[in-house]
């Protein structure tokens, strides 16, 4: 048996955007085991629900994560709306859908950039982030925030988007789409990119089911599940096909995410076309009592929100199951048998968001 050595990896590492620590047990350059450790950015946000008015808690819920902040806020308010049994105005639903998809686009562009950075293609990294910047500018114009949007409230949304703004956004997204088409060529057919991604980190369909993968990680293994198709916000009225791939490797995950960006742009176009007029929020009176679950498709996969209220203005329990948590096990599985040089890439392909996971 070859000599075994343990290499500590993270929580501070040049390619890691998030603090995760791994003890990598190596045999020569091959990984035989990876032992994870998280807990560096725990903030106790769930516990805070007992001390903050349920209306104001949305501002805390959306601070769970800096990338999918809108959807965290939305998951919380949708759960609360279920407890109140409130039907929000259709325009608010459409606005939420548009913002959700914009979040997905900027999150996936961020990830593509990080992936390029991960395999050492800096110029490609900047190209992706340049595009993402445009999405952030649009967010700032529509909601006032670049990262945390603070536009959700229980009963609807706080800000409306006028017609001209929507038209302008669609125009901007058309431009982004054009640029992204060229960039897709690089990601999916460039020799150097392919050589780093093809056949790396295989997660077969059966393993993905057994280990409970979520989101693009799961869809890249040929499983066609997307929470958007069960319909929350305005997704019931929107036509879209679930993007999947059967390659099961890192390349497939990259492909699925790129295709999802195009899909999101298409969803935004549809939503802008169909968006009805009218109110954007309703008043909710009284204190909540009861419990509710909601499921939301985040850029990283399915997130689950649970709220339990006891008739006072403070909730009893708030819980989030984040997609990264579900994806950690498949990640550890793909690490086994991989080369040390591929570790950063394999961690990146699940699109980890450790800060969400720890809250």
């Amino acid at each position: 048996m070859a000599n075994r050595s343990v290499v500590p990896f993270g929580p501070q590492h040049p390619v890691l955007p998030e603090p995760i620590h791994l003890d990598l047990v190596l045999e020569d350059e091959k990984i035989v085991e990876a032992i994870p450790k998280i807990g560096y950015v725990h903030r106790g946000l769930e516990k805070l629900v007992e001390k903050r008015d349920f209306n104001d808690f949305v501002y805390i819920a959306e601070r769970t994560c800096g990338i999918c902040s809108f959807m965290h806020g939305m998951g919380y308010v949708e759960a609360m709306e279920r407890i109140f049994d409130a039907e929000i105005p259709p325009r608010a639903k459409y606005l939420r859908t548009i913002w959700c998809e914009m979040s997905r686009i900027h999150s996936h562009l961020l990830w593509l950039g990080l992936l390029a950075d991960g395999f050492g293609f800096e110029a490609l990294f900047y190209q992706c982030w340049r595009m993402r910047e445009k999405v952030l500018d649009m967010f700032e114009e529509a909601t006032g925030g670049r990262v945390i949007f603070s536009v959700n409230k229980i009963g609807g949304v706080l800000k409306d988007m006028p017609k001209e703004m929507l038209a302008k956004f669609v125009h901007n997204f058309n431009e982004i789409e054009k640029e992204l088409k060229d960039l897709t060529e690089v990601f999916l057919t460039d020799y150097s990119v392919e050589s780093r991604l093809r056949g790396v980190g295989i997660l077969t369909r059966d393993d993905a089911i057994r280990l409970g993968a979520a989101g693009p990680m799961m869809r890249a293994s040929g499983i066609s599940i997307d929470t958007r198709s069960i319909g929350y916000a305005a997704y019931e009225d929107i036509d879209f096909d679930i993007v999947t791939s059967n390659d099961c490797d890192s390349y497939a995950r990259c492909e699925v995410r790129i295709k999802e960006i195009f899909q999101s742009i298409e969803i935004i176009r549809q939503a802008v076309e169909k968006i009805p007029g009218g109110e954007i929020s309703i008043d909710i009176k009284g204190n909540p009592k009861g419990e509710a679950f909601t499921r939301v498709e985040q850029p990283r996969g399915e997130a689950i929100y649970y709220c339990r209220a006891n008739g006072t203005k403070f909730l009893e329990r708030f819980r989030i199951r984040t997609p990264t948590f579900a994806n950690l096990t498949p990640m550890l599985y793909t690490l086994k048998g991989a080369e040390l040089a591929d570790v950063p890439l394999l961690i990146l392909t699940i699109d980890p968001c450790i800060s969400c996971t720890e809250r």
Partner: protein
Amino acid sequence: MASIMKFTSFALKNLFSKPVTKNYPAEEREYPARARGSLQCKIEDCIFCGMCQRKCPSGAITVDRKARQWSIDRMGCVQCENCVNHCPKSCLKMDVHYSEPDYNKVVTTLEGPPVAPKPELTPEKIAELKAAAAAKKAAAAKAKE
């Protein structure tokens, strides 16, 4: 071979185009009207009700009704705009510009203008007020008829 050169067109384009980044801070950034930069308070209109303090999720605002003081920990504020949405006098506003950076956590305190002293009630004044009230009552009774 061609598949190695996929990025070349981007590289060439970038080489001959203007930078995308701004020469900040020499070149000012234009903020959109909705941008949430820093919280401003029009202290003359404030009634020190403390609503903003109760609504602030990060506990950045302190209101002292007795001393007529309103203070904010700018670095504690997360720009959520919740206080702006709940102020009954609409004296809070989000400015598009961010607050100044600092080495210390400074708390900005604003003091309201002193309240004008209540006019003293002389016997003549009381009589006058009573007469006004009686006139009003009579007018109301007449209108009813």
